């Protein structure tokens, strides 16, 4: 069996400022007209700074840090969604990520059709999707709505269906942004069991979380991110302490 791993070497990641700088005729004219304009420079955001890290087969890594510390960026970089500005990223294994579940339905198509499309988005084959479609329908448990267009769904139903599809198949490397809870209490319980199974089946887990309870339950290694830098990498308890010290909440 081949070993799965994640190897990051001196990774830097910038969000380019052009993306959110205002580009309009107004700002263009303001720039050329004489007179003083209050200048608000928008700089590139240095979201991840010099990240060097190795994760080996079997590790359960927790990612903690304040809001905006770079946890989600880190996960999306590992998933290959965000390009790195410098450094090298090597990921071996099939990556399965659960970030924003409610994204990406075709509103005009029915629930059943969307099960197929979402499965294909994740790189699965139509043949495989046909074999699991009934399981997904049963798990989502939204009754006759499964044959209605997605745009008739309530928000809760959309999340349930999205969750049922996205958690149907696991991968070698599982990236989780918070342990996702969805729907009513009854569904929550099913969802938790499903996630736990996914985590058990994965070879490598990286979990970004604010919940120290699930961190202690699930992870055997924790990384503290602070303003895009790794401040601590090691056992869970000292990591929680370090996090408390950095944010000034710990005693």
């Amino acid at each position, binding site marked *: 069996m081949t070993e799965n791993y994640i190897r990051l070497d001196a990774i830097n990641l910038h969000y380019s400022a*052009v993306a959110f700088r205002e580009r309009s005729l107004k700002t263009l004219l303001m720039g050329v007209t004489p007179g003083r304009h209050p200048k608000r420079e928008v700089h590139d955001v240095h979201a991840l700074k010099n990240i060097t890290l190795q994760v080996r087969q079997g590790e359960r890594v927790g990612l903690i840090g304040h809001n905006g510390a770079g946890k989600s960026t880190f996960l999306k970089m590992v*998933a290959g969604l965000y390009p790195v500005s410098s450094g090298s990223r090597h990921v071996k294994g099939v990556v399965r990520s659960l*970030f*924003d579940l409610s*994204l990406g339905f*075709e509103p*005009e198509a029915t629930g059943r*059709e969307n099960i197929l*499309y979402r499965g294909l988005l994740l790189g699965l*084959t139509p043949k495989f999707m046909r074999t699991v479609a009934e399981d997904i329908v049963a798990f989502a448990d939204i009754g006759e709505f499964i044959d209605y267009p997605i745009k008739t769904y309530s928000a809760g139903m959309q999340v349930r269906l999205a969750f049922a599809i996205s958690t149907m198949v696991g991968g070698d490397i599982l990236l989780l942004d918070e342990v996702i809870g969805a729907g009513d209490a009854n569904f929550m319980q099913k969802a938790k069991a499903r996630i736990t199974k996914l985590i058990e089946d994965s070879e490598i887990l990286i979990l970004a979380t604010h919940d120290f309870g699930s961190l202690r339950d699930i992870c055997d290694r924790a990384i503290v991110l602070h303003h895009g830098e790794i401040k601590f990498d090691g056992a869970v308890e000292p990591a929680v302490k370090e996090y408390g010290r950095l944010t000034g909440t710990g005693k």
Partner: protein
Amino acid sequence: MKMPYIHGIYEARYFWIHLALSDLRAKWRRSYLGIAWSLLQPLGMTLLLSFVFAKIFKQSIAGYAPYILSGMIVWEFFIATLTLGSMSFVQAEPYIKQYRHPLAIYTLRNTLTNLMVLVMASLSLIGWVLIVMPQNFGWCWIVAPLVFPLAALIAWPVATALAYIGARFRDLTPALALIMQAMWFVSPIYFEASLFRNGGLGVLVDFNPIYHLLEIVRAPLLRGEWPTFVNFAACGFTIVAAFAVAWLIGRKSEDKVIFYL
């Protein structure tokens, strides 16, 4: 172009094929005539236009109408593929933010959808020609279907290049509408090529890829002739150039698109 990229497009084939089919279904959902509209729409427009043009240019309506029809359906394909295509990354934002597929699959999806509409629409042209000019039918017709892959291979890379730009500069769509209008005006799409040549504007015909592409349909169907080698060479050259431009823009932009969405 790098092989892994092309491989990625192939790997995702089920995804973009199904999306294209879904787009086609969505297009005609809850309409009585459904897909028949892709035949009726150009036919109706052609009748209207050729009635007017035939009067102005004093030509027979039966002969001139297929000329307009052939120009219209192919041109509509380009308008739809390029204008929708320029926004196709923006449209695919939820997918792009969840899974890393080669971005060109999202313009391929649009190209494919519009290609299927073009194939449907071309049935009306074939029907018309068979009734009005049956004498044109012959062996040369076998090359006419080549217009489908050729048109797609030109439109896809151009749409992809536009989509990279469109993700960053949202002004592109209105600007593109203007450019397409201008292109239409200087191309022998509704107006006969001879009209340009007689006016000393032969350049607009001979160096116009749209003219050469249209000749692949028009020579056999409307005149019963084989298209010339130059017609095919011009299409081939355009395809190579379009892919080169898309690759040059994509090389720099492919990774960064996600930041602009």
